[in-house]
């Protein structure tokens, strides 16, 4: 989109004052380590994006643009730290400039300030800082794990939005599935309550109508011939039967509910249940012994990246010196531990399912029985039962949440026995219900139909909700599957194109020794696998047999292939910070030839610490003498000196 003509840097990073005249052409900054080369790259990136990647990536927790962007002596006056770029828009040949200070990094001065084309171009570049490539980023395309490589490549192709959408569809589907599962459990409980109220062995239209019609006959009500969604089993009751009931409570059904509660409580007190709880508790305590690792589960990616970027000398995160083998053994050990812990966590969640189901059953049975209390002639205080019910539900919720594990251990370690006060309340309710005079057969039939209808409606309502949720889950699953299918197929086409271009570029760069090179870029959901041919012996991961120099070349070729695909003819600017340090002299000429011949419309701004590299670039015709700057020395007081 743009070409850079001039860079003016003032009080920025290790630079006090420096001007680079690039004239929209390729440009090389050469200098020994510590002379300020990367500061120039940071300056170009900062001017165009308002950010410095090196101060904002992983492992830069204590670094910030405001504190560490200005020269060390200008930290207190960030308004004096600025970068100014003069550039042209290739498509229209329009000239423009941008000036950005550290203090107002999000509000650059743009000239011309109201030109929509300039604004659009700068906005686009600001969002996509991938025009800057360091060796660290280069290696991410090559040695990263498939999931991480996918993120890098998708970001470069500006496809991150596709992945965000995939995660959104997946999250909605999983949430619907979870909700449907809970509703299914509620439906089961409602069905059991209905079966108890009707006194039938199982729920079907036939069993329900047979039982209901027997009771309706006692009230001289006509049989219901067909059960439909809107059928009321007490239809005709209010108009044809005006008997005042002895009690508001249907005695027989209430006694059944109390019996069910006792049975549920017994299940919870049985050895089998206690064994399941003890087993889960043991697993939780064992898992909690690795509480630190459990917390580290979220940092698994960091460990994987640390391993990838370890340079055999220093930890890439804290720069502590390490024995290479010991470092790798330690990180691999931690990763193995985390994988094992992840599996234990999943196993534990499965082991807790029957426990939460039992707790749910008891809590529901308690609620049903408690609701009878206020309707008794002498109301009974059911607070102890309600407190116990709340305790069971809280335990259930904590078991479902699982983390923090210590809290779940405490939750499951409590005594689930029905407290004495609750036992007394239950006994009182049972005695009060038993004391209700047996109703006449007509009263009993009336109570039967009223309660039966109530529970049938509850069952119907939950079933309706479940049906809606099942439909939603199916919809969400279909849309999610369809999206993944289309995305994978389309990405496969893109990667096939990039794969071909990548192989072509690599063959050009390594024609002397790998003229028959080939590569496979395979896309799976959320992952991209890269395997490369090794001298016709088969396809292997890039790091398996190829040298570091070859891996650097691969990184560059893949980057170039991706940028070409993403930007097409608009790939007009690339800034390389000391990439290809491992490439030997023979291949460097090929790199220069490739950049010059294959990307004639791209302005490359490069840094190198190697004078010989600079000479190669000149002799290969990638740059002319005036297209380079040699940084001679660096001093904290005077900064970089060109």
């Amino acid at each position, binding site marked *: 989109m743009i070409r850079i003509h001039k860079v003016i840097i003032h009080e920025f990073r290790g630079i006090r004052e420096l001007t680079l005249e690039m004239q929209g052409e390729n440009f090389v900054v050469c200098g020994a380590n510590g002379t300020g080369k990367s500061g120039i790259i940071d300056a170009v990136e900062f001017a165009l994006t308002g950010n410095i990647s090196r101060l904002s990536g992983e492992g830069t927790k204590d670094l910030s643009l405001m504190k560490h962007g200005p020269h060390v002596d200008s930290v207190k006056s960030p308004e004096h730290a600025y970068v100014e770029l003069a550039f042209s828009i290739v498509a229209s040949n329009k000239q423009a400039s941008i000036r950005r200070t550290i203090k107002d990094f999000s509000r650059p001065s743009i000239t011309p300030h109201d030109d929509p*084309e300039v604004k659009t171009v700068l906005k686009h570049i600001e969002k996509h800082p991938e025009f800057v490539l360091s060796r660290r980023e280069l290696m991410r395309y090559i040695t990263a794990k498939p999931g991480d490589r996918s993120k890098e490549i998708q970001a470069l192709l*500006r496809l991150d939005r*596709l992945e*965000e*959408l995939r995660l959104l*569809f997946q999250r909605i589907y999983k949430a619907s599935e979870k909700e449907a599962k809970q509703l299914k459990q509620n439906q089961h409980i409602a069905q059991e309550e209905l079966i108890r109220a009707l006194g039938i062995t199982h729920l079907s239209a036939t069993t329900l109508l047979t039982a209901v019609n027997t009771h309706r006959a006692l009230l001289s009500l006509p049989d219901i011939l067909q059960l439909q969604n809107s059928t009321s089993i007490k239809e005709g009751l209010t108009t044809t039967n005006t008997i005042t009931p002895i009690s508001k409570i249907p005695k027989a059904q209430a006694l059944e509910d109390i019996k069910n509660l006792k049975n549920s409580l017994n299940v919870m007190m049985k050895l089998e249940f206690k064994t399941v709880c003890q087993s889960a508790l043991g697993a939780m305590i064992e898992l909690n012994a690795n509480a630190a690792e459990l917390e580290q589960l979220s940092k698994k990616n960091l460990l994987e990246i640390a391993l990838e970027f370890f340079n055999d000398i220093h930890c890439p995160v804290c720069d502590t010196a390490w024995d290479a083998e010991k470092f790798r053994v330690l990180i691999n050990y931690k990763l193995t531990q985390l994988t094992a812990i992840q599996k234990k966590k999943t196993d534990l969640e499965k082991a807790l399912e029957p426990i939460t189901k039992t707790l749910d059953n008891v809590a529901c049975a308690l609620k049903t029985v408690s609701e009878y209390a206020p309707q008794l002639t002498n109301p009974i205080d059911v607070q102890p039962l309600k407190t116990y019910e709340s305790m069971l539900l809280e335990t259930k919720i904590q078991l479902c949440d699982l983390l923090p594990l210590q809290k779940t251990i405490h939750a499951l370690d409590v005594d689930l026995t029905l407290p004495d006060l609750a036992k007394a309340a239950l006994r009182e309710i049972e005695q009060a219900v038993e004391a209700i005079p047996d109703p006449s057969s007509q009263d009993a039939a009336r109570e039967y139909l009223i309660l039966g209808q109530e529970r049938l409606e509850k069952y119907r309502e939950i079933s309706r909700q479940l049906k809606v949720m099942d439909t939603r889950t199916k919809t*969400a699953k279909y849309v999610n599957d*369809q999206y993944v299918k289309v995305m994978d197929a389309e*990405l496969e086409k893109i990667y096939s194109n990039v794969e071909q271009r990548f192989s072509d570029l690599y063959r050009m760069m390594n024609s002397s020794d790998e003229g028959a090179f080939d590569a496979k870029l395979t896309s799976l959901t959320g992952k991209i696998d890269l395997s490369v041919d090794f001298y016709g012996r088969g396809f292997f991961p890039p790091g398996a047999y190829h040298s570091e120099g070859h891996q650097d070349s691969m990184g560059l070729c893949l980057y170039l292939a991706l940028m070409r695909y993403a930007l097409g003819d608009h790939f007009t600017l690339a800034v390389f910070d000391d990439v290809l340090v491992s490439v030997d002299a023979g291949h460097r000429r090929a790199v220069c030839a490739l950049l010059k011949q294959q990307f004639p419309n791209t302005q490359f701004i490069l840094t190198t610490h190697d004078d010989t590299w600079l000479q190669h670039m000149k002799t290969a015709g990638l740059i002319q003498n005036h297209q380079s700057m040699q940084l001679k020395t660096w001093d904290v007081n005077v900064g970089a000196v060109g």
Partner: protein
Amino acid sequence: MKPNPTDPKTISDRIIKTFIDQLSARGDFEKIAQKLEKAILDKYPSEQLIRAALFDEERAP
């Protein structure tokens, strides 16, 4: 600025459009596809918007 046929934005958009078209081709998902297209055209569609598009009340039994 002239529209760029290889504009990066259009790669994502093209894939999303293919997805919407294929979804729409299944008759009973046509309405959802239309609503999703509207929701996704927002640059960063919220979960709420996508849910609303997927779970059209009219589809509930």
